[in-house]
């Protein structure tokens, strides 16, 4: 099964769960594939910046991101499902982000 077919299958599954009735077209699948590749490539390049903290940590993190990406692929359909207009979802991410920001600003400063 090609990666394109895996993407199609996963989109279909997620649409069934979300009870969406939109047809899956070539454009939808290609867009999802592009987004997937962009996401993985951008995150990998961003992780290279960890070299400023420690080169070994960078290698470990790149390996971890690669493994997670390969295991969780395709990520975009899930990400799209999570990044929806549901208030509960938004509230959840807002509260999580607040926790992360406060924690990072509080402890991050002590170690930079």
């Amino acid at each position: 099964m090609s990666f394109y077919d895996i993407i199609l299958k996963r989109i279909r599954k997620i649409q069934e769960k979300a009870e969406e009735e939109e047809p899956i077209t070539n454009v939808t699948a290609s867009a999802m594939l592009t987004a997937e590749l962009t996401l993985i490539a951008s995150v990998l390049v961003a992780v290279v910046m960890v070299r400023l903290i420690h080169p070994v940590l960078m290698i470990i993190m790149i390996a971890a991101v690669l493994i997670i990406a390969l295991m969780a692929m395709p990520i975009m359909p899930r990400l799209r499902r999570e990044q929806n207009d549901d208030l509960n979802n938004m509230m959840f991410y807002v509260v999580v982000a607040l926790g992360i920001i406060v924690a990072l600003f509080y402890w991050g400063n002590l170690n930079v």
Partner: protein
Amino acid sequence: MNANALIAVMVILPIASALFLNLLHKKDRTIKILAIITAIVIPIIPLLTPYGSHFFGGYVPLAQNATLAQGLPSLITGTQLFQFHPGVMYVFTSAQQLMVFVLGLITFFAIFTFLNETKRPSGVYAFLMFMGTASVSAILLSDDIFNIFVFFEIAALAQVGIIVASGIKNNYETALKYILLGNIAGPLLLLGIVILLGVTGNVNVTDMIFTFKQGYVDPNSPVILMALALIAFGWLYASGLPPFHTIKSAVYSKALPHGAALLQAFSVFTLVAIGIIILRLFSYNSFTNIAIIGISVIAMILGITMAIVQTDYKRILGYLAVGELGYIGIGLGLGTAFGITAGLFQAVNEAIITSFLFIGFGTVLYKTRTSNTRKLGGMMYVNPKVALLVLLAGLAMAGVPPLNAFQSKLMLIQAAIQSGLPELGIIMILLSIVTFMTFMKAFYTIYMRPKPKELEILDNKIPRSTVISLVALLIICIILGLFPQIATNSLQTLAAGLV
């Protein structure tokens, strides 16, 4: 009249006009005349105003008041009290001039398009647009962090009003969600401000910095760090950076095109204004810059990847606008004079280009009453001139030379490399390419593919005012692309002061 009083007029005029327009219900002609006059005057005032400060109520610091300062004991002249700003102060420099001017210009184009696309223009809608503009102008000008918070709240309410007034399906729901999320972010921002007030005894940013620099307060104390985190969180909400990117893109998609053009300009300039305050107050803490860069990279990646998979062109633009905010954040986060100048220049460019795109794509909504790309096609035949203008707007957003975003994105990439972070440059190039691809996908489905049989195109002609607005915005993009120094010269003094 004191020439510096014009600084206050930049905020007072749109508020006064807004309040008056609100009263003119059903007086269509009067609304049109008053709204257009105000919209013309708003961008002119910053051009006529000399640089300087305005002290509301005339409460200048003792150090600047020769009469009061005479004969004061050293107990006062030798302490912070002598420099202390007792009232609200607005500061107007070349950077504020450029940004308030561009905001005024976008307000003008939004009002101009609204008045001509709407048969019976609503005074209430114009009220909301002017109130938003006044609030964001105040946020850009004010040196008083509590004053900024008040206008932050007014801007949020004006934005909610603009969504509610659009009449687009599910707009009420989106407006409610936006205000509910604001009910988390707003009070937390206020709490951050209150903590700073409690610790430093000030709400004036210059006074707070003085307090930190003189060692009256330990800037690395946990309480100050908590205030920084809370203010940063409020900043994310105001500008639409993650985790607020989803609601912000929804907000843009539920507003009318001229409203969306203005809303994104509000987000861009609020991001810049509060971002500058954060840098001024907390740049001593290197983690601030790291956090700004981190959030900006996440915004770019999430915004642009989410834009690709959307099928509603207003939502595509909304997410792309969020992604572009990340470029501005990176400029600010790099923390060098060149990087900050590039970030500010990108902000000016993005505000112009995204307005250009919203107004341009708005013509599709005007002709078809749909923004779903699955139902659209063949719009090139309907109006090829507008299609060309929209294409150029998309090229500008992607950073194609000789248009303006090319210059600012190039500067950002150079700044990233100079700062020893070439990875950021690579990400920016990669995401610019994907932005271009996303735009071309939307452009193809709307304009170039055959028109679907079931698509009904209305007979109403696209108003000439809309086309004029698009051409004017294109000219600005070309001018800033060919002569970037027009903008960068105005911005670099502010940027240098932040380093």
